[in-house]
């Protein structure tokens, strides 16, 4: 499938998820069955496919390959989680087995977050080897403080979390850990933001921008869904949840942008192989044009 079509598909999924969740949340009570879960599953299937392609572009044993491998594993666990949630809703377990079988979804949720965190750390390590993303500015600390402020806010409202009343203690612990597990990748989003600033543009910076939006929007969405905002400011909560639903699509979008980078670099390398003279002429004329 042409990559332009994949991109159009991802934006369509982004819009559909946002509209669907907004419809469900405001005013609350509209039924969308489990179509949102199907959409998320589709998003992570595309993400998995793209992550596998991107990791194949990195040499075996490299840190960046490990990063994309962890992203791929995170996608796998997310697919399991959303497929399971769709199945649970379709089987009617949300009314009969909400605190038992359904609460098992916390296992793939936690595994997905752990893999995502590991992937982001590996990505950071790759840039740190170049001396990037190791010096922070006061604005980064402000962002980090803001993100950390969400954690107690969510923990205080943990009773409203979907599996806080699971029959199994392990699941309850995992659910309690989710604010922290969401906050750590969001904090790594600040690191990515610093790296992106140091990059100073380029295609890779677009990848990072999408990752950052993905990480932060999910945290904001979780906050809106479990805190008092949901009751006191339903419109705001609906917007945040719709944003969080749409944010899922930013993950495959980031992987797509990264894969497009590989495709473009391969094409350019082919041109340099077939006609190096003409390509160098073009590059040199660009340099004089820039001057």
């Amino acid at each position, binding site marked *: 499938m042409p990559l332009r079509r994949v991109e159009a598909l991802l934006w369509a999924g982004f819009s559909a998820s946002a509209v669907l969740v907004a419809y469900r949340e405001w005013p609350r009570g509209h039924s969308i069955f489990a179509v949102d879960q199907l959409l998320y599953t589709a998003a992570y299937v595309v993400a998995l496919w793209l992550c596998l392609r991107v990791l194949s572009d*990195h040499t075996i044993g490299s840190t960046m390959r490990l990063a994309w491998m962890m992203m791929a594993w995170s996608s796998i666990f997310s697919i399991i989680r959303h497929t399971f949630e769709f199945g649970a809703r379709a089987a009617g377990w949300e009314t009969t087995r909400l605190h038992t079988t359904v609460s098992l979804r916390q296992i793939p949720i936690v595994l997905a977050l752990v893999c995502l965190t590991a992937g982001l750390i590996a990505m950071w390590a790759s840039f740190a080897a*170049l001396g990037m993303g190791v010096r922070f500015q006061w604005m980064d600390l402000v962002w980090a403080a803001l993100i950390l402020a969400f954690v107690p806010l969510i923990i205080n409202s943990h009773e409203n979390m979907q599996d806080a009343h699971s029959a199994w203690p392990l699941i309850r612990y995992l659910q309690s850990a989710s604010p922290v597990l969401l906050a750590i990748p969001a904090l790594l989003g600040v690191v990515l933001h610093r790296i992106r600033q140091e990059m100073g*543009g380029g*295609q890779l910076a677009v990848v990072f921008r999408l990752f950052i939006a993905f990480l932060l929007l999910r945290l904001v969405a979780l906050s809106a869904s479990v805190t008092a905002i949901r009751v006191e400011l339903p419109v705001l909560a609906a917007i945040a949840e719709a944003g969080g639903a749409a944010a899922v699509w930013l993950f495959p979008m980031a992987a797509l942008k990264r894969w497009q*980078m*590989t495709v473009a670099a391969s094409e*350019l390398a082919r041109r340099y192989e077939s006609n190096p003279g003409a390509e*160098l002429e073009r*590059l040199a004329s660009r340099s004089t044009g820039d001057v």
Partner: protein
Amino acid sequence: MQNHITDADWLRFFDAPGDCEDNQRVREHLAGCARCANVLESFESVRQGLVTEKDRIRGAVALSDSEIDSLLGRCLAQIGTERHAGWSAAEATLLLRLLIEPICGHGTAGATINLARRRSLPVTEENLTSKSWSIFISNLSDAMSSICGAAAGRLVRRAGFSIAVQEG
């Protein structure tokens, strides 16, 4: 004893197969000498074999007009670059920087180039030269691969080795 046809006679016979006096003498001799007639027969057989092989080889390496045009274009492009055979290492680095900036940004381009330069030069040297260029390109390609993937590393390698670097 019969005077057989000499090597010089054969050369003259094949080079100018006309009706000169020497060739007439050769023909007369061939009519009465089985040994020389056999030699002529083997010569004819070899010549026929060569003609057949020539046609076969020509057919095997036949190029279409578009392939010939493409080859010509590449030759002209290579000739065109000869004018720039004298890139200094600094100019060549600048060109590579220009190549990779749209992929990874100017900050990452600077960081990878600095890392590759540090890895390619001895402590006592500061500037890249034509001698250190190859190792610099390999290191830059590795650094780019580690961040942007093997395709970007390959691009750097191909472009880098296409630039003819001379002592500035």
